[in-house]
């Protein structure tokens, strides 16, 4: 099997997961203007509740719905009760509060379920078909289709729907939302809820691969950060392209250079992009300070 070819194909598969991790961050950034560090922990809570449902005899479908539901509700609660109210002190305290929330959730999980990694079920372990020498499983196919649907949906939501346009507007100017007749706090809450459910979906793809522990989804956060910095902070499409590029780049680095250099190469790639295009590859807007 050709090493290069296989590295690229599998890089794309995992890159879509990285892109998804970036997408959740973009949604919060677009409405609120900062980044959440708690998305991995929010997903972890959903996943542990989902796993309990699975062990209690619920099928995969019920498990997936539970995971997404819990992360959505928790995302909304964190945003609505803690982070958005803190915006009155500025964006920086709001962003820092997500670190605090992450620490608390991580601590609670450590006390209640413990740190042991556990297996998490996947959609299906059956192989679907061979592509370019790589056997793709049904879980890969479902993952890619779901991601494609999410990206198309988000693109449509932000470009076409009234609330999506209003969400983009409030970040530029918080009076814009009022003019459109939508209160900006409610819009931001919608952003947090959407991001919460996205992190749940992300967790469903990550947990079967990385195993489930309180920190496992968090390890993907750094790839999401890189994806949105490289792709352009406000672009969903940028996150997709950058996520896939990162997946391929890290696979090639791991196969041809040294697996221990992957995070460093990612950081260097991020800085290189910023030197050439400070707004990222697909970012259009001038960045506003927080």
């Amino acid at each position, binding site marked *: 099997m050709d090493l290069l070819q296989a590295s690229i194909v599998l890089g794309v598969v995992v890159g879509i997961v990285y892109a998804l991790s970036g997408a959740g961050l973009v949604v919060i950034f677009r409405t609120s203007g900062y980044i959440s560090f708690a998305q991995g922990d929010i997903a972890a809570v959903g996943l542990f509740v989902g796993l309990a449902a699975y062990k209690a005899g619920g099928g995969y479908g019920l498990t997936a719905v539970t995971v997404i539901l819990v992360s959505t509700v928790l995302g909304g609660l964190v945003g609505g009760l803690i982070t958005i109210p803190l915006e009155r002190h500025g964006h920086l305290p709001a962003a820092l509060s997500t670190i605090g929330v992450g620490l608390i959730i991580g601590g609670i999980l*450590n006390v209640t379920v413990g740190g*042991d990694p*556990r*297996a998490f079920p996947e959609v299906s372990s059956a*192989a679907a078909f061979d592509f370019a020498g790589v*056997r793709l499983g049904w879980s890969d196919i479902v993952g890619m289709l779901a991601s494609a649907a999410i990206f198309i949906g988000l693109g449509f939501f932000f470009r076409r729907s009234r609330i999506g346009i209003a969400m983009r507007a409030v970040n530029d100017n918080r009076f814009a939302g009022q003019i459109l007749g939508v209160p900006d706090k409610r819009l931001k809450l919608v952003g947090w809820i959407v991001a919460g459910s996205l992190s749940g979906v992300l967790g469903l793809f990550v947990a079967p691969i990385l195993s489930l522990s309180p920190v496992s989804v968090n390890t*993907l956060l750094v790839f999401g950060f890189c994806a949105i910095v490289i792709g352009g902070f406000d672009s969903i499409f940028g996150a997709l392209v950058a996520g896939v590029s990162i997946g391929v780049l*890290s696979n*090639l680095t791991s196969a041809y250079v040294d*697996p221990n250099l992957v995070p460093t190469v990612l950081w260097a790639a991020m800085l290189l992009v910023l030197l050439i295009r400070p707004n990222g590859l697909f970012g259009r807007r001038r960045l506003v300070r927080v």
Partner: protein
Amino acid sequence: MSTRSLRITLCAALVATTLAACGGGTADGGGDQGSGGGTIKLGAFSPLSGPAVSSSSGVKATEAAIRKLNDAGGINGHKLEFIVKDDQYDPAKTPGVTRELVESDNVAMMCGPQGSVPFGAVKDYLAARKVPSIVNAGAPTLAGEYSYLVSSPFDGLGGLLADYAMDELGTKNIAIAYSEDILGTSALEGAKKALSEVGAQPAGEVKFDVSATDFSAQAIQLKGTNADFVIMPGAQANVAGQLINAAEKIGYQPKWGLSYASQNQTLLDLTGGALDGRAFFATPYISPESAVGQDYVATLNKYFPEVETSSGATIAGYTIGEVCLTVLQAAVDEAGGDVPSSEDIQKVMNNMSIDNDYIKGINWTTDGHEGARSAQILALVDGKFETDQDYSPLPE
């Protein structure tokens, strides 16, 4: 200076005094002096919190072995006190908790402190304080004047797996997967040496990063070697599980040579039964399915029912507890029935061979403090870890 500035200063002084007062209180908490009064004090550090918390089952097993002996009356009537402190596997925290164990709790020895890097951070300190340690870690570099190892060196385990593949499985088509740390690299060296002794070469050497989120590049490289047997004893269960899954995913299904480091339920859960009959674990420790293993399982279930008994790390921790007790029994005899000092303990350890139900092939002398030079191979059969090749000396 204005009155306002004075007030700020006064307030700061108030805070300062409060702080100092707290300090006095903490200093008093030091407790009793010396290991007198019929109590032998033992200490250990372990990641009881933080990202590495799952490793802490080892220290619980050590504690189970100690509590079992206490409930049976102790050693010559002396009770054992086992104090475990949390270092989160962070080598910056280890010296702090170790100082507390040595200087405030006055432990006579360290029994099963966990982790190569954390122990590396306090090895010199413990030697300076003349506190002997029986370490729960696999890196041979940790052996020293005051530190004694139980676990087999990983170059030996790597060599044993290579010999097993050639003699029992009948293949010389062997690849090695390793991470850039002492366990991974020494297993690589040991396996290569065993192969070169019969004039063979590894089919491939593939390096991985234990903190990676994606192991597909390594899986592709391993598949490219087309080896029948892949040796990676240094990997922990979650890493081994991810790499094995990534290989399965691209249709590569070799036999895997692992070690007690990945012998646990997490590996079985992650790989979902795919490994049955295809995974082999080199270990100096007992099989939980053996006769003596039943006794161990019963003890652990009594004191720590939540801890997983089939895990290699748990068995290692329990065995280290048993070794400590063997050492202490000899040390009490050395001290004429009294509570032994650190010096007594070290003296008996410098001339000690252990070959019992739990561990074989330990020969500590004044100059050599290495781990067991005898190990067995367990095979995964119907989700159970059963002896496949009995204890044999490790290849030199």
